[in-house]
């Protein structure tokens, strides 16, 4: 794989790949800055735009956007007391306090440096793991792919935020939606209800556009006014002091990056978790935790390092197993498939240069937005003053025309609208959209692996192979884990009571 290292880097830095990278990064920065929008939205909107591009350019554009949203969100978190994306929520605590103390520049500098270096850290870990991944992949066959997908879905449910029960329902619902259309195993057409449009199944692009872009735009429109209410502080003195503070607290930066990478590797667990866990670690490992929440620069360094390192981690299951490590990776997976690149086991063997391009693009996008963000943070943050009654309809139009551009079929627009309404209901009533999307992506692979295992090895094929059996046992354990914890807590409370 390393023989592709230099050619992949050369390809990325040449024209027009570098243009697409910069463009994607700037778009990601913009979407990250606007609260309510983020990685899933910008990727869902960009996906149809990439149809006519070469696969390598499309991937560079998308990963550039995905990698940039986290830092964009930190700008809003620091300057406006509002996280630009969920993965910047913890950055608000100390970031905005620094702004109030006139140290916005220091906070932005620290966020920029942490973001870039965190992304580099995640990319290094990814680069080290990927060659080993090839050997793991060769040991996998149909039963292992099936069990891996089931375990991935179970993980998403158990590790989700919110109701576990509803997350499982959402995952099951997503699986059912993935069964719509032509079944390649049996040749049947399922759940088409007499509509030719549904013979091809539920298309991923319109579904993603509906679930994320339409849902958020409709929510934004219903909250009239501007997105943020705080006045923007545009003085950014102290940027280099902020950058140097990352080196001053290098141990914390490293630990936070490790946290982010590990969390990124776990499928379905996103940057919001990484952000909070790293912040919590920074507080608990500090000799003076009472300083946090009052403008401690470490309260910016830790979460920002973590939420950028997680992107490298999220690429590990995505590239090696074809199981999305995060929501952004689920969209990226869809993009790879649309461009004829099959992620998962074959990617490492057939398209290793694509994997390296992804890694380089992730690092470079963070560098690009780190520089742009530091220079233009104040001006960019003013975008949040634009009224939602202007921004939301524009996003709706981009989203619906993007869905229409997929195949020029009005059915895709209708699907986007239906999923938009579904997505709004899911957000409102606590059902996990992540679980639904990842199940929608994994459904076909799961079904094919299941039938192939039955045909070739019979039902015992799932349990006689050691890796498959281990994955099954891990899945069962994970699903029972909340009940086990509850039972143990009940026993503990009983003992304490007596």
């Amino acid at each position: 794989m390393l023989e592709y290292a230099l050619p992949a880097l050369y390809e990325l830095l040449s024209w027009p790949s570098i243009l697409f990278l910069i463009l994607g990064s700037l778009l990601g920065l913009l979407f990250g800055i606007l609260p309510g929008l983020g990685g899933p939205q910008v990727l869902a909107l960009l996906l149809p735009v990439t149809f006519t591009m070469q696969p390598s350019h499309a991937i560079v554009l998308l990963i550039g956007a995905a990698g940039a949203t986290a830092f964009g969100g930190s700008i809003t978190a620091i300057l406006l007391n509002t996280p630009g994306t969920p993965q910047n929520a913890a950055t608000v605590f100390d970031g905005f306090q620094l702004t109030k103390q006139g140290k916005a520049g220091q906070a932005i500098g620290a966020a920029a440096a942490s973001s870039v270096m965190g992304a580099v850290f995640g990319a290094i870990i990814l680069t080290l793991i990927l060659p080993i991944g090839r050997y793991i992949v060769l040991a996998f066959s149909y039963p292992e792919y099936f069990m891996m997908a089931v375990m991935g879905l179970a993980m998403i449910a158990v590790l989700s935020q919110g109701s576990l029960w509803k997350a499982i329902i959402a995952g099951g619902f997503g699986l059912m939606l993935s069964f719509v259309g032509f079944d390649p195993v049996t040749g049947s057409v399922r759940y088409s209800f007499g509509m030719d449009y549904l013979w091809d199944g539920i298309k991923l692009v319109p579904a993603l556009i509906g679930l994320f872009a339409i849902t958020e735009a409709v929510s934004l429109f219903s909250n009239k006014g501007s997105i943020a209410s705080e006045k923007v502080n545009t003085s950014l003195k102290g940027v280099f002091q902020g950058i140097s503070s990352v080196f001053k607290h290098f141990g914390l930066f490293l630990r936070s990056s490790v946290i982010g990478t590990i969390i990124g590797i776990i499928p379905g667990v996103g940057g919001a978790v990484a952000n909070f866990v790293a912040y919590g670690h920074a507080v608990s490992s500090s000799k003076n935790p009472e300083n946090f929440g009052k403008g401690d620069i470490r309260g910016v360094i830790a979460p920002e390092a973590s939420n950028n390192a997680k992107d490298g981690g999220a690429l590990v299951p995505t590239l090696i197993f074809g199981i999305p490590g995060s929501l952004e990776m689920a969209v990226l997976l869809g993009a790879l498939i649309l461009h004829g690149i099959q992620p998962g086991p074959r990617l490492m063997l057939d398209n290793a240069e694509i994997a390296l391009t992804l890694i380089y693009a992730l690092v470079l996008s963070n560098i690009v937005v780190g520089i742009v963000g530091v220079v233009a943070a104040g001006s960019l943050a003013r975008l949040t003053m634009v009224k939602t009654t202007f921004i939301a309809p524009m996003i709706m139009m981009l989203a619906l025309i993007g869905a229409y551009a997929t195949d020029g079929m009005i059915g895709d627009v209708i699907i986007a609208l239906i999923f938009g309404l579904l997505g709004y209901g899911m957000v409102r009533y606590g059902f996990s959209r992540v679980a639904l999307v990842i199940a929608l992506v994994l459904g076909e692979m799961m079904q094919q692996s299941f039938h192939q295992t039955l045909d070739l090895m019979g039902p015992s094929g799932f349990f006689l192979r050691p890796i498959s059996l281990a994955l099954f046992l891990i899945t069962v354990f994970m699903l029972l884990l909340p009940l086990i914890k509850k039972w143990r807590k009940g026993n503990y409370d009983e003992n304490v009571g007596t």
Partner: protein
Amino acid sequence: MMKMSGRSIFSLVIVIFMIILVINSFEYNSKARLIPLGVGFLVLVMTFLQFLTDTIPSMGRRFSFLREKGMFTQQVNDQPNSESESQESEVRWSQIIKTFIWLIGFTVLLHFTTYLFAVPIFLFLFIWLAGKEKIISALSVAFGMGVSMYVLFELLLGARF
């Protein structure tokens, strides 16, 4: 005592949808329906239980395992709304439905014309009437988006639809 709220209606819609899918599964051959029937039945039972707890509050106490949270839950607003929140919720839903009706109108317009016509018209009317902004502002945004879409899709991407 049964209490229908937005939450329980949403669960009911999913239950009905799953019933339809499960019943349809019996039309396919045994291999084709194996996984959909299994998954569908499981999801149907789970969603029905969810509907019961959303509709009958006392059931929530009986099925306490339905309230288990994921491991990384920080703050969850999973409780049924109070009365004032219910009223706010109804108002919110009515705004959302109105927005979707506008979007359906846009879809119809798009189907019978082209996006270069439908997008500016929709934006102008939507921002002016639904967003209650000034006509000049609505016209500016509509014109700007129309031009941007033409440049992006027609000139840069060469898309033909």
